[in-house]
């Protein structure tokens, strides 16, 4: 009590109070400052965890990219090998067809067996190509799945406080058939201290596609000789339209003529070389149905496709035929014809009952698949002369030489006329030996047709097959940072 009542020592008390006051004041400032620093640190740590997660995404995506590069190479090899094998198979089939041999067995896949016949080879090739593509895609997808499964959940430590971790995912890669894209999901968690950030990424891999049509492989001569011959007698870009009454309206294309004055119709065409006229009965179309007197028929450079109903076109008089291309899908039997100038006459068989002198003309005999075609003039005691700038072309695979005139007769050719025969033979019975520039044997059927001025534009150039070439794979990564 005495001590309390003591008046001494106020100064000390005052000073102590002041000290406490100032210390308290500064503590407030320090706390505010610490609070700010704490905030900064929190933001920093959060940013570090995001960066760690980004690092993990980059690491895993690079891993996948490397795997996918290897996979692309495997895929390319698989496709190239498979397609090349298919080309070999298709060539074997075509060769068999060309030589009228039975198609090789055991080369079609079960899925495409339904198309594997001599009449559906192109459809079979398309089917097999699709099967290869399907197998390629299946291989690609299963490999992606394998690579993905191999990405086991893993943890990588950047430093003692920072790490990233690949999270296990229940979702499998998703394949989109239309866009040919595989979406590979990834989730990576970045951690620093207690702050964690999970980034969800989707790696989008576009499976490389085939090249454009222009780079495709074209299998040549996929048509058999029979199919080629059949197509020769069909106008290119054939259709069923009827010719307009006014010839001036027919500027180009194909039409069926149903009138009775074909000669004047051809003459009135704006450009006969661009038009193909189809008729069933040439005699009726030109003039006279009963007698078939077609003397001095002038085709004006036009092309006429004739498909006689009974496979035979009998013409009584065809003297002085000129400026016409005639494709007769049957046997052409001419009773009277003395000369022909500037024509191309293509038929399956040919028979003259009088002597014929060809100038500037091509006479093409293509025959039939069963070799029943013929070219005959001697049986009626007449002769044929292939004279100035003319060619007589015979498909030896389509005609029966026993029913034909003797082609070794030297009087056939005159001036620079040529005899062109397909194909070359070992057995030369009733066949003349080759003479350079005069008697020519050819072994390429289409080249033979072209040499004889037969219009081959309607023939398919071949069946195109897809080819696989190097292409850069589109790989895109989308990262979702969440909220």
């Amino acid at each position: 009590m005495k001590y309390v009542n003591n008046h001494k020592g106020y100064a000390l008390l005052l000073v102590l109070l002041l000290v406490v006051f100032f210390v308290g004041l500064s503590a407030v400032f320090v706390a505010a400052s610490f609070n700010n620093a704490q905030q900064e640190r929190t933001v920093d740590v959060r940013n570090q965890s995001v960066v760690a997660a980004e690092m993990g995404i980059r690491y895993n995506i690079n891993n996948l990219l490397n795997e996918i590069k290897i996979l692309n190479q495997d895929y390319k090899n698989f496709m190239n090998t498979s397609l090349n094998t298919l080309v070999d198979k298709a060539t074997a089939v075509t060769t068999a067809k060309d030589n009228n041999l039975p198609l090789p067995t055991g080369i079609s896949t079960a899925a495409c067996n339904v198309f594997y016949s001599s009449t559906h080879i192109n459809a079979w090739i398309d089917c097999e190509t699709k099967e290869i593509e399907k197998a390629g895609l299946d291989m690609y997808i299963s490999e992606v799945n394998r690579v993905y499964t191999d990405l086991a959940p893993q943890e990588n430590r950047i430093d003692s406080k920072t790490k990233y971790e690949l999270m296990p995912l229940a979702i499998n890669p998703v394949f989109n058939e239309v866009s040919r894209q595989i979406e590979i999901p990834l989730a990576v968690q970045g951690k620093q201290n207690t702050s964690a950030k999970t980034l969800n990424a989707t790696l989008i891999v576009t499976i490389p596609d085939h090249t454009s049509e222009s780079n495709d492989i074209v299998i040549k001569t996929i048509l058999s000789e029979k199919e080629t011959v059949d197509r020769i007698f069909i106008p290119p870009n054939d259709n069923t339209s009827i010719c307009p009454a006014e010839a001036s309206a027919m500027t180009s294309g194909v039409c069926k003529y149903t009138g009775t004055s074909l000669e004047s119709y051809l003459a009135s065409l704006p450009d006969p070389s661009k038009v193909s006229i189809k008729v069933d009965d040439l005699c009726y179309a030109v003039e006279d149905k009963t007698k078939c007197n077609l003397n001095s028929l002038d085709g004006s450079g036009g092309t006429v496709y004739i498909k006689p109903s009974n496979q035979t076109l009998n013409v009584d008089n065809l003297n002085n035929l000129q400026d016409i291309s005639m494709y007769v899908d049957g046997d052409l039997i001419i009773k009277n014809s003395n000369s022909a100038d500037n024509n191309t006459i293509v038929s399956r068989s040919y028979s003259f009952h009088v002597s014929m002198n060809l100038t500037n003309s091509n006479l093409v005999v293509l025959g039939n698949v069963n070799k029943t075609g013929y070219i005959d003039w001697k049986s009626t005691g007449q002769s044929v002369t292939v004279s100035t700038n003319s060619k007589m072309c015979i498909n030896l695979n389509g005609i029966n030489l026993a029913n034909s005139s003797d082609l070794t007769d030297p009087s056939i050719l005159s001036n620079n006329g040529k005899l062109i025969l397909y194909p070359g033979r070992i057995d030369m019975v009733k066949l003349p030996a080759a003479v350079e520039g005069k008697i020519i044997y050819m072994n390429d059927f289409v080249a033979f047709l072209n040499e004889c001025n037969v219009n081959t534009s309607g023939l398919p150039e071949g069946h195109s097959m897809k080819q696989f070439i190097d292409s850069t794979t589109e790989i895109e990564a989308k990262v979702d940072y969440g909220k």
Partner: protein
Amino acid sequence: MRNYLKNNQGITLVELIAALALVSMVAILIMTTLGIGFKHSIAEANKTSTQQEANLIVSKLLNEHRKGECYFIKQGGSPNNLKIMAAPSLCTSPSEPTTGFKDISSSGYNVTLTSASKMINPIKEDYTLVAEVSYKKAKYQINTKLTRYKTTN
């Protein structure tokens, strides 16, 4: 105590003056110290506030950037056009969208964007943000790069 209370003697004028003088001196000293302290405290608080606003701007823009969609950043807002604004934009069109802008910086702070005002495609490019935030007399310069994982090919 009783003696003290019953004591009739006062303090002399000299003692009083001396006491007042001493108290005044001490009071002046304390007031001056406190005044300076408060002044610095306010300045520091402003500075901290400016820094926090800058952090907020960066965080908001970073969130926008990490969405991965194209956006347009520009100087704008009212009053006085001293805000940073952003709007979703078409990646195909680099021109300024007419609608959709929202404030990135808060009211009361004057923010001047010194980096380019433009359309940003975050999956293709980073954006270097340079801006100055001022609040009362405090100023803070932001100079940072907004990044996110970019599309790879």
